[in-house]
């Protein structure tokens, strides 16, 4: 299936469940099979949760904006939120917190599942994150062991 969808949503605590439902629907439209749908949903869920949590919760009456673009081959997702991404942070898709840490797994999961992951800083204290998922090859999911 092919589709392009752009969503701009007020990012109060109460709208996160709505955003989660929307990404579930997007993942089911874009994916080929239940496992791929889970992976797409997870990627979007991590990025949307971060946009709410690290971005917009600190900025009341703010918005987040995300876009999904897909055909049979590739799923591209991008998301913009207010808030600055820590410049010095490195995200390694391996090396998950071994100790019992409650956080710090989101972007590692995303990097592990995606074929491409990019963070950029926009004017006005905004962060733009882009992720790509290869719908055709099993490569990104095969590496999971």
């Amino acid at each position, binding site marked *: 299936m092919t589709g392009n969808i752009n969503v701009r949503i007020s990012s109060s605590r109460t709208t*996160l469940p709505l955003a*989660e439902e929307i990404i579930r629907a997007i993942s089911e439209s874009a994916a080929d099979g239940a496992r791929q749908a889970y992976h797409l949903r997870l990627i979007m869920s991590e990025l949307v949760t971060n946009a709410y949590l690290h971005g917009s919760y600190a900025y009341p009456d703010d918005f987040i904006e995300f876009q999904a673009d897909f055909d049979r081959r590739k799923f591209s997702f991008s998301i913009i939120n207010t808030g600055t991404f820590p410049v010095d942070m490195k995200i390694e898709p391996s090396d*998950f917190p071994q100790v*019992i*840490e*409650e956080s710090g797994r989101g972007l*590692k999961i995303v990097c*592990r599942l995606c074929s491409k992951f990019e963070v950029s800083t926009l004017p006005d204290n905004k962060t733009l994150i882009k992720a790509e998922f290869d719908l055709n090859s099993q490569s990104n999911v095969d590496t*999971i062991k």
Partner: protein
Amino acid sequence: MDIQKRIEGDVAILNLNGRLDLSSAALLKEASKETIGRETGKMLLNMDKVDFINSSGLGALVSILKEVRNNHGTLKLTNLAPYVREIFDITQLSNIFEIYPDEKRALASFK
């Protein structure tokens, strides 16, 4: 997320139903809190009806595990759906949590 509690012998069982994400993480931690306070400290989370978990949900489970261990209790997980289980593997949390295929085997493993 809907959470049902019941007691089986001296084990407190929580049946979780729905998605385990940032919005439901607080709810689950809250529901676990009373259970952790119980004397025997044996707790089992049945995740049969959890169709989705993300890192916020994993974070909540880690938080509960720490609390349980601080209280010298034991936490076990059962009935993980295949894709949910896969996320435990990816994040290497399968090494930290005691995961059982079903309630029967989990209950038998509590000494």
